């Protein structure tokens, strides 16, 4: 691969208490891949993303985005948190949440204008949520809330997208709608990194995969490394998936 490296992680170690949750992770994510991060619950997938985005401070190691530290490259990165990380009873509307994706480029104090609103409406349209723009967010279904988060990331108009379980609790048609959006992002040359739990769909959806369980088990093209050996190493049990060609 002679491609540019979008995200480079070196010797990353993270702990909440004394026990490391991520141990000495080295990871290179090439530009333009649609990558799945897989691993069991508690493997540190969310922690990895949070450390890359500077939400958590690692004990050791470094992260760079296109060769520079994250702080200098924020505008290139968008984030979809795990849905359960916020209170959906918060008094605000779907449109308002999506607008938050524009706050980064606005910076301190400046108010969103018509331009930001237009961008937010477009993003809502893309995820098929335009009819719900004025809904209070607690009155959306789980899958709809997930789409709102996706729209908020789209409005950030980034080069690299980190998504923590965007398929969590969505039905089959929403899942297809979301994956199509992700594939469109890849087609536009963006890099998309997705925490994913459904191993069956990995070969179909993604072209790149990272196995993670505290340590990095393997990373590379799905067709080369998505096999029973790596799955067993990651999940600890004798794992067999039937990969349909």
């Amino acid at each position, binding site marked *: 691969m002679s491609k540019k490296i979008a995200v480079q992680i070196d010797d990353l170690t993270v702990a*909440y*208490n004394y026990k490391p949750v991520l141990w000495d992770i080295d990871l290179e994510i090439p530009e333009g891949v649609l990558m799945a991060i897989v691993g069991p619950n508690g493997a540190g997938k969310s922690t990895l993303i*949070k450390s890359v*985005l*500077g*939400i958590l401070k690692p004990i050791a190691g470094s992260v760079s985005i296109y060769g520079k530290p994250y*702080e200098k490259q*924020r505008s290139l*990165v968008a*984030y979809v*948190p795990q849905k359960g*990380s*916020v*209170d959906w009873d*918060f*008094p*605000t*509307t779907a449109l*308002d*949440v999506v607008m*938050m994706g524009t*706050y*980064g480029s*606005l910076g*301190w*104090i400046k*108010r*969103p204008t018509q331009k930001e609103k237009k961008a937010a409406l477009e993003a809502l349209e893309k995820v098929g949520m335009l*009819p719900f723009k004025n809904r*209070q967010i607690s009155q959306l279904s789980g899958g709809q809330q997930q789409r709102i988060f996706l729209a*908020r990331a789209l409005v950030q108009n980034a080069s690299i997208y980190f998504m923590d379980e965007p398929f969590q609790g969505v039905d089959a048609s929403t899942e297809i709608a979301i994956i199509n959006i992700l594939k469109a992002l890849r087609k536009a040359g963006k890099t998309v990194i997705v925490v994913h739990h459904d191993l069956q769909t990995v070969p179909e959806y993604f072209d790149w995969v990272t196995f993670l369980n505290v340590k990095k088990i393997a990373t590379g093209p799905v067709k080369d490394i998505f096999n029973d050996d790596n799955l067993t190493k990651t999940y600890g049990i004798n794992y067999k998936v039937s990969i349909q060609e």
Partner: protein
Amino acid sequence: MDITEYIMLVFTDYTLRTITLGTAILGAVTGMLGSFAVLRKQSLLGDAISHAALPGIAIVFLITGAKDSNVLLLGALVSGLIGTFWIRGIISKTHLKSDTALGLILSLFFGFGMLLLTFIQKQPNANQAGLDKYLFGQAATLVESDVWLMAIVTGICLMILLLFWKEFKMLLFDSDFTKTLGFNTKFIDILITSFIVLAIVLGLQTVGVVLMSAMLLAPAAAARQWTNRLSVMVFLSALFGAFSGVFGTAVSASQNNLSTGPVIVIIAGVFVLISFVFSPSRGLLFKQIRFIKNRRDLQLHKTLAFMFRIAETHENISHPHSIKILNNFQGFTKGTLQKLVQKNYVQLNGNMWSLTREGYKTASNLYNQQTENNE
């Protein structure tokens, strides 16, 4: 004393006017800031801050012997801030649950404060500065300068709120995301928290350590019931707080000088009660009414759909059928049949019913309409 008389008095009587203004402003600022505490699910924060302020008052009195409320409140501010940032530290360093940290600091500081108060009271020459007014509040001791101070703090607070509105809102909803965008979440957080501390300390003289947190929580909890927009919530919360202050003062002044602080808190509580019962979207009452109405409509629709399916089997949709065949249908009652007749969906003829044209049309559109109405 009747109402007009009282209102006249508010405008003419200096003391009453001062107290009314003071409690109104206090209610507004605590209500406004309370929205943030409520939305962050930090209900104990107000309690912790007000209790943490007590030792500051006692220590300043012990050192300076001052009786001037502004000096004492400075002590309260310092110890309130220390307590609050101690709590923050505990939460972020030890991963204790925030309730635990709040409760811990609350009891620790309050215990220490009470210890100092009893010590002061035992001093022979202590001029018994009436420090216990900070426990339960004494609105009657408010003077014009106190009110000015409250007004200035409220004004600054309002300006900051408007200036950093977008940042506050985003932090409250999703602090991790806010961080990834490059906003200094710690700064925003400290800003909000400091103002909450300031507002609470200003209220100690009026409402007291013990009841102060109700001033923070009650108006916000009430306001939350009426709106799904943060801006409206903050505004309503300030309004409820201010009204509680004004009404509370009125009640206590007209009823033989009942203690003002508790009355204000009770009135704020009444706002909460009314809001939880009567709010159109979230209130218990309308929820129940809507629930019953939806059930009825649904029963009606189900019966109509059932009849539709029977009528469909005949070429002539108005062909009469026996009522008996409906009896097997779950949810069918004489009442629903009557209603369908009233709506002119169904015609009755002795023991026989038949669908009208309108009924047929409504029934065939029922499913489509329902899905559309959901949007």
